[in-house]
């Protein structure tokens, strides 16, 4: 693969993700004001001292946006990594071991997926105390059901290949087969899936925060910022739209990269490859 083969749209996506990660990592350096400092009047228009204006409590919107990138990306990434580890481990185990284990995991997964994700999250978060790690865990477990489904399908395709059979005949254990035979051969489609789940996590986290069940104030996060500033909309103040646009932009960028990864995967497989 050379750099020239990457299409323009994917470059846009990569640039957008890089910018967001840069903001997240160097937030204290970039942000002109502190995350929780009240620096001016409420809902000041953009321009002047405050590049994007101020929010409902008079905090600088740009600084909150930069710090919000940190929270949003960290939580979404943590949830995605966790859900992938969980989903892939269980799905590969199910595919390799088969039999009762497979049936048990698959049917339980079907049951979990029978409840819409958002509704499930609402029910669970209504019961659990509000901590950051609980939020990440709930998001990860709910998302891992989707990963399980894909992972099992992909792993089953590979598990019947000759080289896996050869490994079995050599006497390798299930762990070897999962990590050394199946994982390297399923990495490409799963990478695209990872991006897709990450984009979904960002949107899901923002939705939960918007409903007041995600990250709790005064920490800045993009979904919560929309919630904080939504009352301004009626007066024509667009402060709520800026973090909303940030969420949308990041999700679009991730999707652009995923789109390219997916096309690449399907063209590797051969066939007419346009479906």
């Amino acid at each position: 693969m050379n750099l020239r083969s990457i299409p323009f749209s994917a470059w846009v996506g990569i640039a957008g993700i890089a910018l967001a990660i840069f903001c997240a990592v160097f937030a204290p350096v970039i942000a002109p004001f502190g995350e929780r400092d009240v620096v001016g009047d409420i809902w000041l228009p953009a321009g002047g001292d405050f590049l994007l204006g101020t929010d409902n409590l008079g905090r600088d919107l740009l600084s909150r946006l930069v710090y919000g990138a940190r929270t949003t990306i960290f939580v979404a990434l943590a949830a995605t990594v966790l859900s992938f580890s969980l989903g892939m481990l269980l799905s590969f185990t199910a595919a390799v071991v088969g039999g009762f284990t497979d049936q048990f995991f698959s049917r339980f997964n079907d049951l979990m997926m029978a409840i819409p994700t958002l509704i499930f999250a609402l029910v669970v978060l209504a019961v659990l105390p509000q901590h950051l790690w609980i939020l990440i865990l709930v998001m990860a477990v709910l998302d891992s059901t989707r990963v399980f489904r894909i992972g099992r399908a992909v792993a089953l395709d590979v598990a019947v290949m000759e080289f896996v059979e050869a490994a079995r005949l050599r006497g390798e254990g299930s762990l070897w087969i999962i990590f050394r035979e199946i994982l390297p051969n399923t990495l490409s489609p799963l990478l695209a899936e990872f991006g897709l789940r990450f984009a979904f996590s960002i949107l899901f986290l923002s939705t939960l925060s918007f409903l007041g069940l995600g990250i709790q104030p005064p920490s800045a996060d993009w979904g919560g910022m929309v919630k904080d500033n939504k009352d301004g909309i009626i007066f024509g103040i667009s402060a709520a739209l800026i973090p909303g646009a940030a969420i949308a932009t990041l999700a679009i960028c991730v999707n652009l990269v995923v789109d390219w990864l997916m096309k690449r995967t399907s063209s590797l497989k051969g066939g007419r490859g346009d479906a």
Partner: protein
Amino acid sequence: MMESGPLTGPVPTDGSADGTHPRPAELSGVPAKPNPADGEIGGTFWRRFTFRRPLAALILQRLGLSVGLLFAVSLMISGGIEALPGDFATTYLGQSATPQAVENIRKDLGLDKPWTERYLSWLGGAVQGDFGTSWASKNSVGEQIGKRLGNSLFLAFFAALISVPLAVGLGMLAVQFRNRLPDKIINVVSLAAISLPEFFVGYLLIMFFAVKYGIATFPATVYDSMSFTERLSAIALPVATLVLVVLAHMMRMTRAAILNVMSSAYVETAELKGLSAFRIIAKHAAPNAVAPVINVIALNLAYLVVGVVVVEVVFVYPGMGQYMVDAVTVRDMPVVQACGLIFAAFYIFLNMAADILAIIANPRLRHPR
């Protein structure tokens, strides 16, 4: 297509998408003959019924499966609430509550009884439409839901009415101009639309149509005394938001489903025979694409039921979604439980409808090999 590609929308809940399912035991050895005479086959009543009416038997089986699934979901919601840590009585009264006060409120809410007893009485009530009383407002949950469910369905119905024909039309357009400019534009725009959070679309529409130009109303509150046209104008913006959110998903899946058919061997044969593009689509592709497209629509309608939650909160619309979110913030468990079950029920039965419609549209699924 559901199996190899990553999933972007809701998925069938019963595992019908996964091709590795062992075929149901009662269907093994179904003779090729469509209507075998009585006595030709033995076995139980159900076995004979499957032979004679394969379609009815499959539908009955799916119905049973869905009811069972719903029962399992109710068990899981109720059991999960029980198993997760957190005591409502202490949450209600705060940290400084005396043990006596906690004990009183537990007795008041019926939490002192064993879980199985509470679950059974709740389930018994739920089947008759009685979901108990709300802890926060002491109102009947069933009564509230009765009012709000109608509002939510009203919203979802109009969103579906607009988005379904639009999505199928655009999907077909994208296939017709595959890899040319219209397809590429539709692809990029729909990719962007998938990435937009519902609340962002909602507020954007409010900003432009309600605040700047003043041609729509916000908040979208509806009353009992409103006339039909007043209601329609009130829900214009929420419906537009829902349509935008669901349209992109539905269109992309429609496109993929049709393309999947278009890239099959028999369409290639038809192309090589020199048939016209229209003839290929009308005679060869369309009959085979009906089932996947119906499937796509039903799955997205299920998604719509859930999408309603956020849209209702944005537009302050008195529906089920807002009721549930409000209840979650004050930890009003009877309401959360009831709403969760009803949303799950809609989701499960729409998925089941997708399944059954696919079986009806595609005779091959009736006689699994």
